[in-house]
């Protein structure tokens, strides 16, 4: 279309240019992002004269002297009229910035197995376009969805390179089954296993990290049942459709280039004590406990040592002050280069992309490097047959570093005491004069679990760790158009993921005198075939029908093997049999539109899954929805205020089948399992059968209204939903006296109910433009029922989050802290009846808050003045709590952990009003069991509300820059800063946290628990992009 207008325009331009006129209007037409628009139409005086903009978005129109009205238009953008008065011989420069039409008649959105006109959509779908995804550097593309769509909660991963965000669409509706949305790339549900490598090194594998954001054309987030039910048993937690860029026919060659360089720093820093401060606290604790002389020091002395030995160690410690945090963090360098090529001929269209991204984090030694290539090729074979090939190949190399509980910065925030040296200052001899530790040898200390520690030593010498992930997502589609309005699509997809983890460990003095290495390989083959037929039937002028019928089959085989080499002796381990699952599905959709304003849609999907037994193998997931475009009615057509008004509602069923492949089977070990007793084989049961296992099912009711005001200068959408999830899958802890500890069962019932609001307003138009986009969502989450089970039936691993009926999923279940007793400085707790007690007892654990926010939202403000543009994205979250699970040690009993300076506010003498109790080395003083200083109280549950300026960018665009013979279109220079500031009352590191999780259940149950989790990064970037 654009091309056609361009050609017509070009002809006209040639005709016009043969006259010589003195009065000229000329200028550049650009889009809302200040990018030039070739082929835009410029008409004068109702079409008396007209031109189209050229490749550089420029136009020039010769007019007679006097007043003229110019009309600028472009498909998908709002028409603009400008009055100009030309004097004889005047050349007037008039640059126009077009604004997109919020609801344009031919604007399409991607829906499951097809596209629909945006206007006709009756489901709830949020679209995020490519520019927003590449606007800011993120560890992985999904992070860029943050703040862009109402009701889509994106919690950024930690500061680790390549870390995964957690996305929850309309709240958490699952307990043990995966709660993430289904990701579909160009029609293929891709492999998305976060736990393929557990949480080794305190990081989950991120299956989305290898996807190249620069290849993405648009992302659609399907939220309600009308939109997701077409994905049946996998739609319950929302669906994210990713469409990659494609070429367009007859377009000639265009090349886009983007490059970005930047640096990464931590968004916040922990306030650990230095040697003097730590020893002061420790000494005070020692004296409070009745100790005399100097306090004993971990890894140097013990409580039983005599006073002189203790004093000697203390004095030596005082002479050293190592900032371990500073030894583990630095400045990461980021660089990204991306080239996209599009070429269209008579019969073909090509997109080819190549990109390199090296994304170092601020953690020394940590970075994620991605090289990726993509070819999307469309070929029109004949009138009725077209082939589309999409193929990507990428390689992500994650240079790993231990974090959180596993080491690195985590050590610096816990067991690395400031008086431990990095290396021995001088040679240490034993009593006989033998060298125990040569000078410069790394000082190795032991943490409380006996682990050998020294984050610098591990990073520099003892451990090298790499995860290499190769990923290829491929798809071939045949589009067959046998008769008019009938389109058949046959698609075959193959998604290949190959993850190779290499860990090499050198000898460690005093720990291990040999080297060892670990190789872990996982690869997943994922095939997908689908066949759909789509028929559009215009019965009469006013009655339009659309029908879709289809079938799909998906199969995934997951393999793994490993090899451990200890002291040069290899022990290979290979699991011969893959873990497999498959889905076989049939689906259909019917749309009916009456008079272009009454819309009805029904969808249905039957899904069969290998994960369920014959009893419950097939599930049926229907949905119905309806919409009414009120603004098309005669009584509203001429409204000056309301330019668009649509009401819509839907109801439907969706499911979740995201559980381990063989959870339903009762199994026994193989007869030759290699385990012997008395040198005879044994055979034993592994897992209990549950032949009745079935999907969890969500019933979703949704209603919303879309409004456009003043020619869509302001558009907003307000929606409500009610989502009741039943038969929710739980891997329940069963009574161990049954002989088993876990069992998969359909148990819980969960309610999510909410309101979503989004608005886009063009506050200022004209020379200075200002647009605001704002979205806000409120979700109420409640665990309605868990049968006869108690809160301890499932747990968020070590995170003390539980399932409590009447409370949100993943509530913090801790002993409630009341206050510090002013008289004696002891912590006072509240028992189940609210009575004060000094006894810390697991039996008095209770709900003390949860990590789910009351409100979440995002605000984007965009400004433009001439060639300058500026964007600011802010996100906020209100009402969630955070459980700072590491603070219980950093601010608890004085132990072998370093402490935070917050601890200074402690009780010292009768009458003191302090945040923290009397200092002690003796956990029993706080009512804890001896040897168990893990003080799980509500004292460390904080308000995690925050407002964060996520990104601010300033850019300048040269619309057509000529350098010698080359013309660069839309050459843009931009700088941006991410995580500029965060307003929060949370005293810890980062109020937005997605820590490493132990499994899918932990991921659902433990939002907002932090445990030595590296804070997010703040990055400063410079971007250069242009096209030619």
């Amino acid at each position, binding site marked *: 279309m654009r091309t056609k207008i361009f050609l017509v325009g070009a002809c006209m331009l040639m005709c016009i240019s043969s006259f010589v006129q003195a009065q000229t209007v000329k200028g550049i037409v650009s889009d809302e992002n200040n990018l030039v628009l070739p082929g835009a139409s410029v008409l004068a005086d109702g079409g008396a004269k007209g031109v189209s903009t050229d490749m550089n978005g420029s136009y020039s129109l010769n007019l007679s002297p006097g007043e003229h009205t110019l009309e600028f238009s472009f498909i998908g953008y709002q028409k603009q009229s400008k009055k100009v008065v030309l004097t004889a011989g005047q050349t007037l420069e008039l640059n126009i910035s077009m604004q997109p039409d919020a609801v344009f008649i031919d604007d399409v959105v991607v829906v499951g197995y097809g596209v629909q006109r945006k206007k006709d959509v009756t489901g709830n779908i949020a679209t995020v376009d490519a520019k927003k995804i590449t606007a800011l550097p993120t560890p992985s593309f999904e992070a860029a969805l943050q703040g862009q769509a109402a009701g889509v909660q994106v919690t950024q991963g930690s500061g680790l390179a390549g870390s995964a965000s957690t996305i929850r669409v309309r709240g958490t509706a699952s307990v043990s089954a995966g709660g993430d949305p289904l990701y579909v790339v160009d029609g293929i549900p891709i492999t998305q296993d976060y736990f393929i490598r557990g949480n080794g090194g305190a990081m989950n594998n991120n299956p989305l990290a290898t996807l190249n954001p620069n290849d993405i054309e648009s992302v659609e987030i399907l939220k309600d049942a009308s939109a997701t039910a077409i994905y049946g048993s996998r739609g319950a937690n929302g669906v994210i459709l990713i469409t990659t860029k494609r070429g367009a026919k007859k377009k000639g060659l265009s090349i886009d280039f983007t490059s970005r360089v930047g640096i990464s720093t931590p968004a916040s820093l922990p306030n650990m004590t230095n040697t003097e401060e730590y020893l002061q606290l420790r000494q005070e604790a020692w004296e409070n406990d009745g100790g005399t002389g100097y306090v004993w020091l971990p890894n140097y002395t013990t409580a039983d040592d005599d006073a002189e030995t203790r004093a000697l160690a203390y004095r030596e410690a005082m002479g050293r002050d190592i900032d371990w945090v500073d030894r583990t963090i630095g400045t990461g360098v980021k660089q990204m280069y991306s080239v996209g090529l599009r070429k269209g001929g008579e019969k073909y269209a090509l997109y080819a992309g190549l990109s390199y991204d090296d994304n170092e984090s601020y953690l020394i030694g940590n970075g994620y490097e991605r090289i990726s290539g993509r070819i999307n090729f469309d070929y029109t074979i004949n009138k*009725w047959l077209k082939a589309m090939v999409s193929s990507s190949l990428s390689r992500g190399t994650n240079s790993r570093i231990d974090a959180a509980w596993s080491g690195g910065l985590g050590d610096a925030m816990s067991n690395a005491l400031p008086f431990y040296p990095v290396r021995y200052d001088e040679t240490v001899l034993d009593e006989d004069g033998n060298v125990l530790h040569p000078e410069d040898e790394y000082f190795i200390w032991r943490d409380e679990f006996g682990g050998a520690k020294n984050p610098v030593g591990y990073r520099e010498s003892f451990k090298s760790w790499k995860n290499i992930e190769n990923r290829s997502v491929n798809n071939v589609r045949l589009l*067959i158009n*046998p*008769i008019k309005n009938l389109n*058949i699509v*046959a698609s075959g997809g193959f998604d290949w993921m190959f993850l190779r983890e290499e860990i090499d460990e050198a000898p460690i003095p005093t720990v291990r005198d040999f080297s060892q290495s670990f190789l872990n390989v996982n690869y997943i083959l994922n095939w997908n*075939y689908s*066949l759909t037929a789509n028929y559009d039937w215009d019965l009469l002028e006013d009655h339009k029908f659309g029908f879709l019928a289809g*079938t799909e*089959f998906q199969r995934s085989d997951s393999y793994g093997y490993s090899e451990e080499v200890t002291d040069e002796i290899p022990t290979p381990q290979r*699991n011969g*049999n*893959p*873990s497999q*699952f*498959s889905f*076989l599905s049939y689906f259909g959709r019917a749309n009916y539109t009456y008079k272009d304003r009454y819309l009805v849609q029904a969808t249905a999907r039957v899904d*069969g*899954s*290998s994960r369920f037994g014959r009893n419950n*193998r097939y599930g049926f997931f229907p949905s119905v929805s309806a919409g009414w475009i009120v603004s098309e009615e005669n009584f509203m057509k001429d409204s000056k205020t309301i330019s668009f008004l649509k009401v819509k509602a839907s109801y439907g069923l969706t499911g979740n089948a995201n559980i381990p*492949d*063989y959870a339903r*089977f009762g*199994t*026994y*070990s*193989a*007869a030759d399992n290699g*385990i*012997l*007793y*008395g*040198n*005879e*084989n*044994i*055979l*034993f*049961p592994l897992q209990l*059968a549950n032949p009745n296992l079935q999907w969890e099912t969500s019933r979703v009711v949704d209603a919303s209204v879309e409004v456009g005001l003043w020619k869509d200068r302001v558009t907003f959408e307000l929606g409500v939903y009610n989502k009741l999830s039943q038969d929710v899958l739980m891997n*329940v*802890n*069963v*009574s*161990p*006296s*049954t*002989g*088993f*500890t876990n069992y998969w069962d359909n148990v819980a019932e969960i309610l999510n109910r909410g309101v979503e609001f989004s608005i886009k307003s063009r506050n200022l138009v004209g020379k200075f433009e200002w647009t605001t986009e704002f979205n806000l969502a409120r979700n109420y989450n409640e665990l309605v029922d868990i049968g*006869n089970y*108690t809160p*301890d039936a499932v747990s968020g691993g070590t995170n003390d989050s539980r399932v409590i009926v009447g409370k949100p999923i993943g509530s913090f279940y801790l002993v409630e802290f009341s206050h510090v007793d002013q008289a004696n400085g002891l912590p006072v707790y509240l028992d189940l009846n609210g009575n004060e007690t000094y006894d810390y007892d*697991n*039996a008095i654990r209770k709900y003390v808050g949860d990590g789910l926010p009351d409100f979440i939202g995002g605000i984007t403000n965009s400004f433009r003045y001439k060639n300058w543009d500026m964007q600011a994205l802010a996100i906020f979250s209100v009402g969630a709590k955070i459980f700072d699970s590491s603070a219980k040690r950093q601010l608890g009993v004085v132990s072998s952990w370093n402490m935070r300076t917050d601890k200074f506010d402690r009780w010292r003498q009768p009458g003191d009003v302090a945040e923290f109790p009397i200092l002690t080395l003796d956990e029993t003083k706080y009512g804890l*069991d*001896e*040897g*168990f200083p893990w003080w799980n109280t509500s004292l460390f549950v904080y308000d995690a509300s925050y407002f964060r300026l996520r990104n601010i960018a300033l850019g300048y665009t040269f619309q057509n820059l000529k350098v010698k013979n080359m013309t660069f279109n839309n050459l843009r220079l931009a700088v941006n800063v991410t995580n500029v500031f965060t307003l929060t009352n949370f005293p810890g590191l980062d109020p937005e946290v997605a820590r490493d999780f132990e499994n899918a259940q932990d991921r659902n149950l433990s939002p907002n628990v932090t445990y030595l989790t590296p804070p997010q990064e703040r990055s400063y970037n410079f971007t250069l992009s242009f096209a030619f």
Partner: protein
Amino acid sequence: MKINYKYLLILACGLMTLSACDKLLEFEPGDVILAEDALKTPEDLQRLLNSNYDVLANLYDGRVQVLSELLTDNLSFPEDNNDYAAVYGRQTNFFTSTTNGVYSDFYRAIYRCNTVLESFDFIDGLSESEQKRIEAEARFIRALCHWSLVKLYAQPYNNTPNNSHLGIVLRLEASQEPLSRNTVAEVYDAIIDDLLFAHSNLPIENGFYASRKSAAGYLAHVYFLMNELPNANFYASEVINSMEFTLDNDLDRFEQDNISSETVFGIVSFSNDFRNEGFSNNYRSDIGTPVLSMSESVFTTFSLNPSDLRNEWIENNNGTYYTTRFNGANYFNIPLVHLTGLHLLRAEALATEGIDLDVAIADVNAIRTRAFGEGINQLPSDASAEDIIEAAREEMFKETICEGVWIDYLKRRGTLGEDIIIRGAPYDCPGMALQFPNGETSVSGFQLNPEGGCN
């Protein structure tokens, strides 16, 4: 247009092909056997039975014995292990993973035993005698597990007049029903029932697996703790008088590649399976610093008599005391019921009953002869019952140091009215019964043990 329809037809066929295949949805886990195919032949059943011995081996490789020993005052405070510290401090809670692991493992074996007992109808070609043997072995193991559990997780037998105090969950069926705790009386009834059946039906000779004498040995011990002394004496005598077992000449019952001649029932360990790690990893002091060290009082008791050859079992390492019982071997067999224990048990039982004192004296002297040498430190033939009891207990204490037996004897004496105080707290203070795992409370209604109260 013609060709288009042809394609349509092909596609329609493709669609049909896809839809015809429910088989496409049948994936079975590899590397394992489906439960319905697992138990078909007598060999399968024998392998399942053998897996129960495997569980026992993982429990009695020292793991369970260490927990029992931690409740006595035989060990010093285990500084480097939080869970051991919790057991030692009588402060276990439902998060104490070591005690939770032991609990789950015992019930794992009980489930498997119940599965064995419920599988006979599905096995082809199982002779009646084989079925009896397998049934007897399964019930023997089930009794062992229930008994170990009730000793660790409940207050001792006779602690209330009718033993109506809460014991543990008795599992006599392979069921997934959540159950509440039975009384100690009910648990002991079931244990005796299983052991009596085992005693009647186990073979005389059964390699290192349970034999009739194994059941007799356990019956002697169980009855002794129940203070049913005639029965204890009866079954101890059955084993001793059978002459199938002889006292080991040397003091080492934990032998490598050889089952001690006095082992009535025990765990076998090979160079490829190390079914002794619970002992070795905690006590072994010849290859590094052990996790557990002995208390000073143990050292003092052992060093009282310089001619006691068992003095070597406890070494003084600059004021820290280690046991040497588990040094020197990477793997060794573990006796659970042994002749030494039965002699001393019988001696105390007879002396308490006031009958056959000569037999009781001979029992004690047999052990003393080995420990001190011929004729040294012998009980005189006219020793009083009290002297015999004292001597029997002294020898029992020494002979079974680290074997996890002593706590049962202390608790028994407590229930008989002796003022038994262990590290400042009564033998039956609440924390002396380990806490149940958190998992038991995943269904409402389970009654946990009271915690603490011992310090």
